[in-house]
């Protein structure tokens, strides 16, 4: 019996909310999938399309961008830009034949450790269903 495909997920986590949320999930011993490679950024607004595309190019099967809820950004409106940028990039991926659900944006605050675990769990399963990225495009 062959091993199940374990997706490799790169997660861009903003320092003030989602990274702290991830940290708290660990402290509270709420299990989250080990498939996640966290990358801490100061704000989700810092995550450029180039960074996300580079993650895919490097072999990530899925990319997760987690930021502060709208209205709670440490830099006031950094996450506003993320909110606009990600849907456009998702659509673009779809236009060139890469499944848009490989890129997901969500909002996780530092107090939402269970949400972090839930979002990552859901995302890993969704990407597992989509299959390895190498089947959609060479990396």
């Amino acid at each position: 019996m062959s091993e199940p495909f374990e997706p490799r997920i790169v997660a861009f986590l903003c320092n003030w909310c989602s990274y702290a949320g991830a940290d708290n999930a660990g402290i509270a011993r709420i299990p989250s999938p080990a498939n996640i490679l966290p990358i801490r950024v100061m704000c989700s607004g810092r995550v450029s399309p180039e960074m996300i595309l580079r993650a895919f190019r490097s072999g990530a099967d899925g990319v997760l961008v987690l930021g502060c809820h709208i209205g709670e950004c440490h830099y006031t409106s950094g996450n506003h830009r993320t909110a606009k940028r990600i849907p456009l990039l998702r659509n673009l991926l779809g236009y060139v034949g890469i499944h848009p659900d490989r890129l997901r944006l969500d909002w996780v605050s530092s107090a939402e450790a269970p949400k972090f675990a839930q979002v990552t769990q859901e995302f890993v399963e969704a990407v597992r269903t989509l299959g390895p990225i190498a089947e959609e495009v060479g990396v």
Partner: protein
Amino acid sequence: MIEEIRAHVAEKLQELDGVIGLRRTAEGTAPCLFREGDDLSQLELDPRYPLASVVSLLQKRYPEARFGIAARGCDARALVEMAKREQVDPDRLYLLGVVCTAEEAEECHCTDPAPDPAPWPQAEVIGTPVEGAPPNPIVAAYEGTSLEERRMFWQGQFLKCIKCYGCRNVCPECFCEACALEDKVWVEPGVLVPPFPMFHLIRAMHMSGRCVACRQCELTCPAHIPLTVLYDLIRRDVEDLLGYVPGADITVSPPLSLTLEDAPLRMELE
């Protein structure tokens, strides 16, 4: 119509420092700056070059000068977006609008083949605008294609890319001094387009909110890659999600760098 335009330019040259247009010589037709006293029988309207970039170049070199331009719809739209990003000063520009013919509009799949004088303090349009042409059939049929079909299509297209950077060089909206496409962290030098097309996807994302469908990129691509299909799709998304049409209204700031209050997203956020 061309005679009318030449006459207009001759008249305007008496008050302007120069008019940017296409000059025909024995060696070909190319952009140039017409000055007062020049032979205007040499002024032509095609082949189309990115004249908007010439305005920016000249205005920056001569910050006090007042120039005019014989501009088509695409040139005018490009100038609007450049003005928003401080590459062009509308107060020092006189726009002599040139309408496209129906054949020209169809060749470019252009929905707006006439310049809009509204954004410009001094402008007039010569000729009667024609109806916009229907969109590129590939774009129109895109909804019906599967991910697999799209992937096969674009893989085949990007395989032809020789990374000449022509699309970037010729684009009137590409004026960044530090271009992401020249950053080796994102676009590996010494390698043509890898199976994951970083160059093209980065360029397409950077074109969101900027591309005015002038088609110069596609016209200059040596590999005949239908770049405008991708940029048209992005432009449609920007209009659907952000209500923004590049080149349309000079008073509306590009939405991607604005807050959600100033430029809302037409989508559920949570």
